[in-house]
């Protein structure tokens, strides 16, 4: 029960943060990526603010033997700079630059009364399932999905 509640609280804060910082605006995001045009640095400050908090406090939290409501911390165990990481991130960046949505803002915008986030989230799920399907085929050499890293 406390796990469910903290999930909800974290989600609420995340969604609120995205809306306050205007990251739910495709235009804002695309203008950040438009360094050769009229550049808008907003996203840099948003990420800076977020990383400042996580960088300061992650270590403090991880010094604990375990989280408050779980037996252990679920952290990504891979540190490899491999092809799936680079190719996957590259493809993600292309999609991000095309639509101006990454998963968080796209999903957070579902209740804003527009069709765009629904199209984005639906196709995102299809793309993700396609990757999972491809990487589950034994012959796939470029298999990238890591099932163990549910959190990242």
């Amino acid at each position, binding site marked *: 029960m406390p796990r469910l509640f903290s999930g909800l609280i974290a989600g609420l804060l995340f969604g*609120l943060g995205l809306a306050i910082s205007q990251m739910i605006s495709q235009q804002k995001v695309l203008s950040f990526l438009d360094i050769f045009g009229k550049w808008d640095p907003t996203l840099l400050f948003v990420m800076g603010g977020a990383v400042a908090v996580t960088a300061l406090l992650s270590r403090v939290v991880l010094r604990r033997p375990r989280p408050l409501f779980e037996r252990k911390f679920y952290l990504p165990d891979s540190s490899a700079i491999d092809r799936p990481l680079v190719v996957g991130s590259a493809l993600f960046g292309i*999609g991000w630059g095309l639509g101006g949505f990454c998963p968080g803002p796209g999903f957070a915008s579902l209740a804003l009364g527009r069709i765009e986030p629904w199209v984005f989230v639906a196709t995102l799920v299809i793309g993700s399932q396609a990757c999972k399907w491809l990487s589950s085929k034994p012959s796939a050499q470029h298999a990238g999905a890591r099932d163990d890293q549910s959190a990242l």
Partner: protein
Amino acid sequence: MMQIPVSALIGGGLIGVSAILLLLFNGRIAGISGILNAALDPEETEGGWRLLFLSGLILGAGAYVWIRPDANPTPVAMPLWLLGIAGFLVGFGTRMGSGCTSGHGVCGLGRFSFRSLVATLVFMATGIATVLVVRHITGVV
């Protein structure tokens, strides 16, 4: 000309606080693509907190826009098929690369993960290159 956007810092700070609380309470990384993927995975049994996190994400942004309607952004005029391609690439790429702006960018960089730094630099670079091609070379959007 370039003033420091306070709302960006406050909003970003809230996102950071959200990530820290999820780590402290549930021991989980606040990566949206990972949470969404696991929430849709039928083999994942403990999905309840993920569904509530995702609901909170919608409610948090929705509530803010409900209170301040001017914060509801106008969508960028683009054909829906193009947005569909964008969504497909984002879904495919974030699963293959094990993370997105939140998982690699906010949480990974905050944990000083070199892997996440590489991922973040790569998706920033291809995002910038894509906007360059779309806006300035082909001039579509």
